[in-house]
Structures are given as structure tokens and as C-alpha cells.
């Protein structure tokens, strides 16, 4: 025991850790492993066929493409929002700061129907886009809009604390050495917040890939065109194609785990940067 943990006079270690491990195993680990174990019922060829049919490949393209585009937009505007919230003063700032987390708190189904009504041909925004030939609802653009909404807080909330911690002395020194504001931003501020920005981007991307609730209302869900991978899993499940659904779920799980690893590495990088600065 002594090699496993350092001595402490506090009680309850065995009980707390035992309960934690039992609960995690029952709720998270065993159910997750079920997905991997059930796929072994397929041969490698069957598995590969199930996860590479044209319809599935089209869903990957849409899911990853829209998630990437949404995360990119969120990186740009998330940085802008974080900057404005940290650096400037304007009326309603506190309220806006609190509302940034709305996509975390609003159930995805509500976001889905609200965005659909907004961007439909007769919606508040859709009616102005339609005459321009831009259709958002029931097209891949709608998927992008929904994923932008749900990923919005991630970049803001990862960049904000780092921006708050930047010492003004650095910027003053840069100004005294003759740098203009743009140079100070690109050479001093941006490199400092870059790891946090990347972390926020990765978090928004990871969240967008798995998103279901907000997307299915606005996507139109046409096979090969506007059908996301999570929806395809449900479709297969409803057709009692358990093996096919599980195979796709495993692909999604593996991608999630890789992204989780990347996010952990990015956070470690950011902390090391922070420690050196």
C-alpha cells in the first residue's frame, strides 16, 4: 500500500477511492467497453465495410467539415469576444459575459428548433438570405450554424483567463521599445494566448463532432447531403442494425479519445508556457 500512495493521517481514502472506482466502472467504463467488445463480433472486413460505405463517408465529410468550420469561426470570434470582455468597458458587459455560457445551459433541442425557425425561408434571418440564394435551414450550412452556436463558449472561456493574466508590463515594455499596438498584439499577446486558443478550438471541435440535438432539426437529414454521423448511428439502431451502429460508435469513440489526448497535450503546453512566462 505504501508504494501505491503516500502516507496521510486523513481518513476515508479506501472508501472514497473504492466508491469512485466502482461507480466509474459501472456507469462509464463497463458500458463504454461494451461498444468495443460488441464490435469484435464483426470480422475486420465486415467492420471496415460498415464504416466506409458511401453514405457513411458522406456523413463523416459533413460532420468533420462543418465541425471544423464552426470551430474555426468560433476561434476567431471567440478570441474577439474574450478580448472585448477583458479589455474594454461598455454598457451591459456583465450581462453579456454571463450569457456567453447560454449554449452550455440551453438544452440542445431548444437551440435546434430556435435556429431552425430563425433560418427557415420565412424566418427572421432566413427571409433575408433566401432572396440572395442562400439557403441555411435544411442544408449543410444549417449544420454549420448549429455547431457554431453550441461551440461558442469554449474559445471565449479558455482564452479569457489567460488574457486577464497577461501582465501590462510586457505590453508597456513593447510600447517603449517602439512597437505599435498591432505589433504588440501579434508578437506579445497572440503567442501568449495561442495555446489557450488552440485548446478552445479543439474543445469546440470535439463537442461539435458528437453533437446531435441542435443539428437534427436544422439539418434536413438527407442521406449523402445533410446527414451527420451521430444521426446515422440512430438510423442504424432503429433498423435493428446493432452491429453497424456499434461499429460507427467505435469510430466516433476512437476519434473522441484522440481529441481528448490532443486537448490534454494542449493544456499541458499552455500550463508550461504560463509557468515559463
Amino acid at each position, binding site marked *: 500500500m505504501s508504494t501505491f*500512495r*503516500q502516507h*496521510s*493521517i*486523513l481518513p*476515508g*481514502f479506501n*472508501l472514497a*477511492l473504492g*466508491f*469512485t472506482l466502482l*461507480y466509474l466502472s459501472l*456507469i*462509464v*467504463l*463497463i*458500458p*463504454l467497453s461494451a*461498444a468495443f467488445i460488441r464490435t469484435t463480433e464483426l470480422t475486420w472486413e465486415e467492420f471496415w465495410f460498415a464504416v466506409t460505405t458511401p453514405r457513411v463517408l458522406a456523413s463523416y465529410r459533413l460532420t468533420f467539415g462543418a465541425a471544423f468550420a464552426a470551430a474555426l469561426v468560433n476561434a476567431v*470570434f471567440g478570441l474577439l*469576444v474574450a*478580448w*472585448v*470582455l*477583458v479589455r*474594454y468597458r461598455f454598457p451591459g458587459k456583465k450581462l*453579456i459575459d*454571463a*450569457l456567453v455560457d447560454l449554449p452550455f*445551459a*440551453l*438544452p440542445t*433541442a*431548444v437551440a435546434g*428548433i*430556435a435556429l431552425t425557425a430563425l433560418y427557415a425561408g420565412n424566418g*427572421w434571418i432566413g427571409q433575408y438570405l433566401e432572396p440572395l440564394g442562400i439557403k441555411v435551414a435544411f442544408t449543410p450550412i444549417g449544420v454549420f450554424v448549429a455547431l457554431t452556436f453550441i461551440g461558442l463558449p469554449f474559445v471565449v472561456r479558455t482564452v479569457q483567463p489567460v488574457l486577464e*493574466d497577461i*501582465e501590462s508590463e510586457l505590453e*508597456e515594455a513593447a510600447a517603449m521599445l517602439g512597437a505599435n*499596438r498591432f505589433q*504588440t498584439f501579434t508578437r506579445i499577446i497572440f503567442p501568449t494566448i495561442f495555446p489557450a486558443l488552440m485548446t478552445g478550438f479543439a474543445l469546440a471541435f*470535439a463537442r461539435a463532432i*458528437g*453533437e*446531435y*440535438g441542435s443539428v437534427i*432539426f436544422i439539418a434536413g437529414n438527407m442521406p449523402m447531403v445533410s446527414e451527420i454521423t*451521430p*444521426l446515422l*448511428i*440512430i438510423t442504424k439502431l432503429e433498423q435493428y442494425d*446493432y452491429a453497424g*451502429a456499434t461499429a460507427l*460508435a467505435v469510430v466516433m469513440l476512437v476519434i*473522441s*479519445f484522440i481529441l481528448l489526448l490532443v486537448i490534454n497535450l494542449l493544456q499541458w503546453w499552455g*500550463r508550461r508556457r*504560463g*509557468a515559463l512566462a
Partner: protein
Amino acid sequence: MNATTLPTTARVRRTRATQEPAWVRWTLIGLALAFLTLFLFVPLILVFYEALKKGTDVYFAAIIEPDALSAIRLTLTVAAIAVPLNLVFGVAAAWAIAKFEFRGKNLLITLIDLPFSVSPVVSGLIYVLIFGLQGWLGPWLAEHDIKVIFAVTGIVLATVFVTVPFIARELIPLMQAQGTEEEEAAVALGANGWQTFSRVTLPNIKWGLLYGTILCNARAMGEFGAVSVVSGHIRGSTNTLPLHVEILYNEYNFAAAFAVASLLALLALVTLALKTMVESRITQPKENANEHRSA
């Protein structure tokens, strides 16, 4: 260095050399607000507008209709089971992780966070693979006439899964930052485990605990994807509020769908308000925690 006071003083001292020109400032503020208006505020306002468009009679009729009331009851029941379970788990996990040093701690923290990175649909699917008719326990459950999938039990399980990390991930950094000195002093003075926890630890972590609970509850009541897979969508029986919104919407009953959705939007706004209030209470230890981690 005191991280809490630095940003304020920095802002006060910021002079022309480290401040953008006014036109740049207001352009950036304008762009940021335009983006937030388009993607956040307009959708939020639209929910309430659509809900009340046909008058308050239609609005309240949609909410007191039996299927809606049953959905409200189910959503409250599910949250009332899932949140306390994850509360106990969060406290136990944080106690083990924050107060003791042991091998594999970082792996354990990653495992606790795992449900956040799993797609909601997959979170539901894995329970179907275990408890569904074709699942591992399916035949046994059918023999004993126990229903998990397409029943309340399945909805609770899927909800517990997606909300596992909320309370634990709030408490772990908070309790790590607070260290173990106070608890050690209590034990040295003869307090037993429960006394140490309830009189020393609990008062220190109560705001963090409340914060995590608020977020956990919001997700538990609002979860859609995972619950959708295991629910079976039986009206008046296994329909939660978010699923009820979907059914009404797909029936083109938009006024009713938005009326029920407005309840969930209100829940989200209350959540944000409570969260902001609690946040100000825990700002201090939170910033210490950041310092602790970067040190």
C-alpha cells in the same frame, strides 16, 4: 504575486501606449456584439416570441396539457435521481484525488472527464448494448420482466452517464488548492472522519459544490441525444421535456413546441443567473487553483 488584483490595477493604469485608438475599440466591440446577437440573443428571444405568438391561452394550454405535465414530472424525477448520485460521486472522487497522493491519479481524472468527450448518441447506445433486447443482459431482463431500455431506468442511467463529470471537476481543483492542513489539524485534535468532512471540508467547498450541482442539474434536465436513444418516445410515459419538444415540433405544433421549449430556456436563464452569483463567491480560491496548477 497577487493575481486577483493585478488585472484591475493594470486596467486602471493602461495608458495611451497600451490602449487601442477609440475607433478600433468600438469597431471590435461592435463586431463582437453583432456576432453574439446573431448567434445567441436572437435565437433566445425567438423562443419566447414564438411561444407567446398565439397568445397566453395557447401558451398555458400547451404547458398544462397532460402529456406536457407528465414530461415535466419525468424530467424532475430523472434529475432528482441523477444529480444526488453524481453529487456523492463528485465528493468521493474529489476527496480521494485532492486529499491524497497516489499513483495513477492523472489517469483517474481523465477517466472522470471521459463522458464529456463521448457523443450523446453513443452515450445512449452503450446502454442499449448492455440492457437492450439484443444486449448482454437483455435476455435475462426479459425473462424477469424488467425493462431498462425504453423505460425510466434507462433514461436515468443515460442521464447519470452524461453528467458524471460536472460536480467532480468543480471540486477537484478547488479542494486541491485548499490543501490538507485544516483537515489534518481537525484529525490531530481528535475529530473523526465524518466530523472532519462536515465541519471543516464542507464549509470550504460549499460554493463549489453548489456551482457543480447547478451545472449538473441543467444538463440532467436538458439532455436530449443520450435520452432520445434509450427512451422509446412513449408519450405520457418515457417522454422528458426535451423529447416532448421534439415530438410537438415534428407534429408541426410549433406554438406548443416553443411553449415547452420556453420552460427549458427559462431553466437555462435561471441556471446562468445562479451560476454567475455563485461564481463571484468562489472566484478567490479558483484563481489560487490556477496559480497552483501553473506553479
